[in-house]
Every structure is written in structure tokens, then in C-alpha cells.
């Protein structure tokens, strides 16, 4: 639920990082926090539980500066990925404007990725939103694990599993190394701002 203040020429939108537990959503935000210092508008907040698992959400405010004469502020959130935090996940998703779905490239997490995408679709529907229409990008995280000899899925296989129907931009990534993290966010922001422009006409 983006907020557009016409008088002040300010727009604030909400991007949510979604995905199965331990897929690297928090690591994405941590990398952005370290690498985009100039754009960070405050502290990163993480509310964790045992084993560094996200309990409620991570939050990182960004200040993108002026775009088409408008000050653009972005709130980045992650949802808790663990299955048992379903209601919290839904709560964090409320008012979302754009989504980065972080999928885990490890073979053993194949089913979890698909279940999480299904869960996203279900929760969006609960808010009367459509996974085919909302600004969404996919990130195939943990590509670096191939170097460690860990079985990971090919990009083609992940595309077939997750992107066959929704057909959204997708990026290979490694949140621990920072590969593909900026691209995923940039693409999601671009889609989101375009989408919001259609709704709110904020560039005029």
C-alpha cells in the first residue's frame, strides 16, 4: 500500500522478501545494508528467534533520492520463512507493493521453494491481490554452493519449477557473496515504481 504525498512529492513503497525458511532473505537485506550505505535511511532491524531464524520480520528503510522529481522511500521487509509462522507471514505481507521471491538453489529445498511460492499466491489472494499482476522477481539464491560440491538445481530446472506460469524476471544470486542481490532489488523496484505510476500517476 504505497503512500504518495502529492504536496511534498514523496512516495513510499513496501517491498517484501518472501521465500522458504533459510533461503537467504535476511542475508539479502544484510548485504543491501552493508553495500548501499548511502541509501540507508536508518538501522536494519531483525527480530530473530533460536538459530538466527526470523521470528517476525527484518526491516530496512531505504531512501532512493529523487526520481522524476519525487522523493522515493522504500521499506524493505522479510517474512519469517518457517512454515509455523504462517500468520506472521501474512501480516508482514499486508500492504506490499513489490516482492522479491528468494528461492533456495539446493536440490534438497526444491519442494520447499514450490510450497513457499504457493503460500505466497494464497496469501496475496487473501488480500485480494494477484500473483500474476503484482510486481515480482525471482532470485535463485545460493548458486555459490555448487563450488562446494553441494547438489544444486540448474537454472532451467528452477525456471520450470517456479517461473513456468508467472513468467517474471529471474536472477541467479549468492547473498553471502552479494552476487545478483542488487540486480534483483533493482528489477523489483523498477517494476514496482512502474506499477505504482500506473495506479497513482506519481511521475506527473
Amino acid at each position, binding site marked *: *500500500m504505497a*503512500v504518495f504525498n502529492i504536496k511534498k512529492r514523496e512516495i513510499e513503497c513496501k517491498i517484501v522478501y518472501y521465500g522458504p*525458511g*533459510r533461503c537467504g532473505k535476511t542475508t539479502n537485506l544484510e548485504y543491501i545494508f552493508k553495500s548501499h550505505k548511502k541509501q540507508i535511511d536508518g538501522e536494519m*532491524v531483525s*527480530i530473530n*528467534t*533460536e*538459530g*538466527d*531464524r526470523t*521470528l*517476525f520480520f527484518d*526491516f530496512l528503510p531505504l531512501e532512493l533520492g529523487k526520481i522524476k522529481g519525487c522523493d522515493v522511500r522504500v*521499506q524493505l521487509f522479510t517474512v519469517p520463512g518457517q512454515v*509455523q*509462522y504462517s*500468520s*506472521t507471514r501474512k*501480516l508482514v505481507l*499486508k*500492504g506490499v507493493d513489490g516482492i522479491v521471491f528468494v528461492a533456495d538453489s*539446493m536440490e*534438497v*529445498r526444491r519442494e520447499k521453494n514450490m510450497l513457499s511460492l504457493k503460500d505466497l499466491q494464497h496469501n496475496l*489472494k487473501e488480500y*485480494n491481490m494477484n500473483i500474476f*499482476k503484482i510486481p515480482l522477481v525471482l532470485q535463485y539464491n545460493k548458486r555459490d*554452493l555448487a563450488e*562446494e*560440491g*553441494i*547438489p544444486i538445481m540448474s537454472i532451467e530446472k528452477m525456471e520450470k519449477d517456479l517461473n513456468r506460469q508467472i513468467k517474471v524476471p529471474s536472477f541467479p544470486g549468492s547473498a553471502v557473496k552479494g552476487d545478483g542481490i542488487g540486480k534483483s532489488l533493482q528489477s523489483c523496484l523498477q517494476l514496482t515504481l512502474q506499477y505504482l505510476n500506473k*495506479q497513482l500517476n506519481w511521475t506527473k
Partner: protein
Amino acid sequence: MNNKIKSILKQAELYRSQGLLNEAREKYQTILDLIRKTDQIKNKDKLLEGLEKKMILLEKDIELVTSAPTTPEMSEHVNTLIKKLFSFTKDSEKSTEDDAALEGAIALAKFGQFDGAIVEFGKLLEIDRLRVTSAKNILRCHLTLESKDDALNQFAEWESSDLFSPEQLEKIRVLFNDMLEKKGMAASQVNEQAEEAAAEIDEQDDEEEILDISAVAITFDSGPHKGEQFELDVSFQSGNIISLIISSNDEVLVESLKVGVKLEEVHFYSPIAIFRGSGVVSAMTQIKSGPKKGDFSLDIKIESI
């Protein structure tokens, strides 16, 4: 065989380092089974002993994760952040600071921060139009915290004060009784006098007690589409008014559901059951902007359920 074991062990260690504890357990188990079946491995007993120790530690980690509280009490700072980030009405032109405060308090409760939520709802008791809602939520929080005595004491305190009008107090009492019954607690513990007074209250009086409706199935009982059933998702609900979105392509519905039309056969789908009832179309407006532009927003007032 050694290489195979090493490779699986590497995977197990990595899964563990990634926090994928169940996946790590599976791999350790695979190695244990492999070693047990094979006689040609040197130091077999030592290896098994080492792996079993790893398994014990892993099981402890799994236990820690699974038994961690899902809604621990958070710091004041976190609670302030939750209130700020999850009160959306603050951005709406029509809403007030009080509405935002109410939404913030509800967000705290939804995140399981019941003690903090009780404090916030308590502040809102001062606001006349939010008093009853806040009071109900205070009682809900107490009961969710299993603090039945606190809830009873709170209600007794309100009864003896002049904070609420008699009508407001009765609304709260009816809901409180209902909550106690659902929790399997004896409703008779609420003041007997209030109990007697409750018998005189019209149930329709409390609009907020309408169940959450997620979808409806409307069957036309007259006109060219008599007998046809249409299922629609509920996009919003306020008390006994539910809002539905009708696509502009759904000409049958757009034409048939004019304001004032009585819907005698409606199935209301709630999270717990399907109810049969009736309603009346109370509003129908075309959406002027946004992704649903051109579609229609239809309000149905639930008359019976």
C-alpha cells in the same frame, strides 16, 4: 566408499551450517547406515561414536528450534516499531491519530505482544468511539494470555466505574461471555446481575459479533437467472456489511445486483463453517482507478445468518 562417506558428510555439515537441521540429520543418518553395513572401514567404531555424538548435538539444536516460543515478549523499541510499521490508516486522509493508534495496538496483539497491546488499548478507552472495541480487545488479550482472573477483574472494575454507558457495558459483557464459553470457562463467573440484564439485549445490537466471511455463494430466486449460483470472494468486511469485487465482464451479476435487491438465498463461507442466510445489496459503485478500474465494488448487508 571413503570418498562417498566424505562427500555425504560434507553435505551434512553444510546443511547444518545453513540451519537446515532436518536435512543434516538425514545425511548423518545415511552415513551411519552406510558405515554400519560396511565391514571394510578402518576405525569403524570410532567413526560411529563420533557421528552419534554429532547426531545427539544436532537433536539438541532441533529441539531448541522447535521449542522456541513463537511469540516472546519484545522490547519497547520493537513494539514501537511494530505499531509504526503496521498501522496503515495513518496514511489515509480520513483516518485520525486515534485510528492509527488502534491499528497499532491490534498489530501488537497480532504479533503476540499482548501485554503491550493491553497498555495501548487501555489508552484508547478514553476515546468514546473506540472505547468498546478497545475494551473487547483488552479482554481478548487477557484471555489469550490465559489470565482469566485478570479479565474478570478488569470487567468487574469497568462495571463499578462510570467509564462505560450501560449499553456499552452490555455489549462488552455479551462478547465476554461468548469468549469465556469458547475458552471453556464458566460464563457464570461474570457478575450475575449483568447476566440477567444480558437476557434483555437484542443480539442484533452488536454488529461486531458477525463472523468473518471469506466468500459468498449467491443463488438467484427469481428473474432470468433463477436457480443459478454465483460464488464471489469477500474483499472487505465491516460488521455486517461485506464488500465484493465484480468484474465488469460479469454482465449477469452487474445487471442483477442492483441496490436494494434482496438476496434470499446466500451461503456465507466463514473460516469455521458455511452458513445459510440472506442479505440485501446496499451499494454498488464502479471502481475509478487502480488495477480493478472499471470493475464494480458491491456491498451486501447481511440480514440474517
